[in-house]
């Protein structure tokens, strides 16, 4: 019984990892006032690039680096459209998703169905991993898990405690006032979108080089969209995102747990999406729906306009 519980919680951590990485990235991006709906596409690009580079070089760390680079690069499209050209961020983000999904399908076609011989190896932290129960769950994990936790805490510290983080937040709250303080609002927004893209790509890299060790089209399976919902759920706080991401990781694992009970697999596949709606509904009913949302989220900023 104990083994089952350990295995379930461990798998929850693994399933929640890409959600946490993506959510932290989106939180940083939205905190600067830019809504990026391109997460699903960027995640997919990250997954395919990480797979291809790992497959050809045999080094998953190189794959991860390349994925982050590629994710940042494609995110420039959204940054340019929504910051420089002040375009509608909903439409621009959707366009980024289409391009990302298309690009990854095109690049990845020769690699569909090929198994990865090397993968991102699990890393047992000395001593800590020997602790009963807690050890195997939290300290004998894929490096992505540790990175996600550290980056989430780091992002919280960055946004709440550093002067650059405060500039990012005030850019999302009141870009005009921020600009008068001598902050380059557009630069901050560009950086936030691009960094957010890097995070999404990391999430994708986890899916293809650690979670499943293969590339198939559509393997992100809506995780990018769940990330957008988790950003709201976390009230734009990277610390709270840890909780949200692993809650959802648990729902992904629940699908496999309930399957032997004879429940239709198609119904179980609906669970993460149903849960997303129900959790947003619950938040709204408990009254903290608009709490903490960046004031100018999604609104283009026109420099020098009075």
């Amino acid at each position: 019984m104990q083994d089952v519980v350990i295995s379930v919680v461990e798998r929850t951590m693994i399933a929640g990892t890409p959600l946490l990485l993506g959510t932290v990235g989106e939180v940083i991006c939205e905190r600067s006032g830019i809504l990026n709906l391109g997460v699903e596409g960027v995640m997919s690009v990250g997954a395919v690039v990480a797979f291809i580079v790992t497959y050809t070089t045999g080094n998953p760390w190189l794959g991860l680096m390349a994925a982050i680079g590629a994710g940042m690069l494609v995110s420039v499209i959204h940054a340019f459209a929504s910051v420089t050209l002040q375009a509608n961020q909903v439409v621009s983000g959707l366009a980024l998703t289409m391009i990302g999904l298309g690009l990854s399908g095109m690049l990845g076609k020769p690699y569909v169905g090929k198994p990865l011989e090397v993968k991102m190896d699990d890393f047992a932290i000395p001593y800590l991993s020997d602790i009963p129960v807690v050890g195997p769950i939290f300290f004998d994990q894929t490096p992505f898990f540790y990175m996600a936790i550290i980056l989430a805490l780091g992002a919280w510290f960055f946004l709440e405690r550093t002067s650059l983080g405060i500039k990012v937040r005030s850019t999302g709250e009141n870009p005009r006032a921020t600009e008068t303080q001598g902050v380059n609002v557009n630069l901050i927004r560009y950086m936030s979108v691009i960094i957010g893209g890097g995070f999404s790509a990391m999430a994708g890299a986890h899916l293809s080089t650690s979670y499943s060790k293969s590339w198939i089209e559509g393997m992100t399976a809506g995780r990018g969209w769940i990330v957008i919902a988790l950003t709201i759920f976390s009230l734009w706080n990277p610390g709270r995102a840890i909780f949200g991401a692993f809650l959802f990781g648990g729902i992904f694992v629940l699908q496999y747990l309930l399957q032997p009970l004879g429940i239709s697999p198609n119904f179980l596949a609906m669970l993460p999406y149903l849960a997303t709606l129900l959790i947003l509904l619950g938040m709204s009913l408990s009254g903290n729906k608009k709490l903490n949302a960046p004031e100018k989220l999604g609104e283009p900023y026109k420099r020098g306009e009075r």
Partner: protein
Amino acid sequence: MFRIKVSDRETTTELRSFLTNVASLGAGLCAIGLVFVVCGVNPFFAISKIFLGSFGSMYGFKETVTKAIPLIIIGGGLTLAFRARFWNIGAEGQLLMGAIASTWVGLAWGPHLPSAVIIPLMFLAGFIGGGLWGLIPAILKVRFSINEVISTLMLNYICAELVTLLIVGPWKGKTRFGFPGTDNLVDTATLGVIPGSRIHYLTLLLALVAVGILWVVVFKTRFGYEVRVIGENPDAGRYAGINFFKTSLIVMAISGGMAGLAGVGEVAGIHHHLTYPAAISSGYGFTAIIVAWLAKLNPVYAIVSGFFFAGILVGGDAIQISLGLPAATVQIVNGILLVCLIMGDFFFKNKITIKWGR
């Protein structure tokens, strides 16, 4: 050295709007050409192949018309939602809901009713199915402040699983020998096609009439006026006492209902039974977003842009076969064109002057 100055354009014309769109699409095709070059494909050959594949042969043209039907009807409906600033990304799910509802009516009553009764009933069921599915995000947004982009997308995934659940489970047809899919509709519950093609003309006619009516609604009625006010200036709308709840609900019932009609067309006109979600709709709900955007949110223009993007879908199939490119190519083409269209808007709204010298 030179300086770039950006200022608001004071006057705009329909002609300039049209020319901006044409220039944006031109720029988009250049960018797509670049992607082809990177992929080692001759861009002139590939792009000409796209348009020859869709508009250059009789077969291609018929297929283009067939695929234009759902794009026009969904894109038209989306223009209304987008005008009210309701970001309905859920047309794919609303289409599937329409398909489910009409299949249910068709299978249950098809054998007992004459064609002239069952066909309108199926369209009605499809409209209601898609419309009700569209009402969910509307209520969630207006009553519970839940972002409609997320809710409509989640409902897409849920509906796709629901269709699969039905065709492998309770609705699996006896004539399918264990394969997924419902039984075929009786012939009287299917739509006629133009001989030698797959063009189900009744749905095409319905699409044209629907966008025409929608044009009248948007530009000639009080309701349309309210929708436009909400979209252009929500604060003014609030002061004028416009009922947001009611307007959003009607907008989404129409937008979702029209997507549902497209679902009826695909089931009754093309497949004649309910099958896998990816087969019923090849991403029409998403492509229709670009259709609406290219149409400048004018329902009647959705006819033209619907044909254009239907051409790209069909041409995309053609280059997949002749150049061995993956199906995802069409998505890149669509995404790049959409980016170029929204970038073009910037040059439509703003005047850019470059000054040489100090």
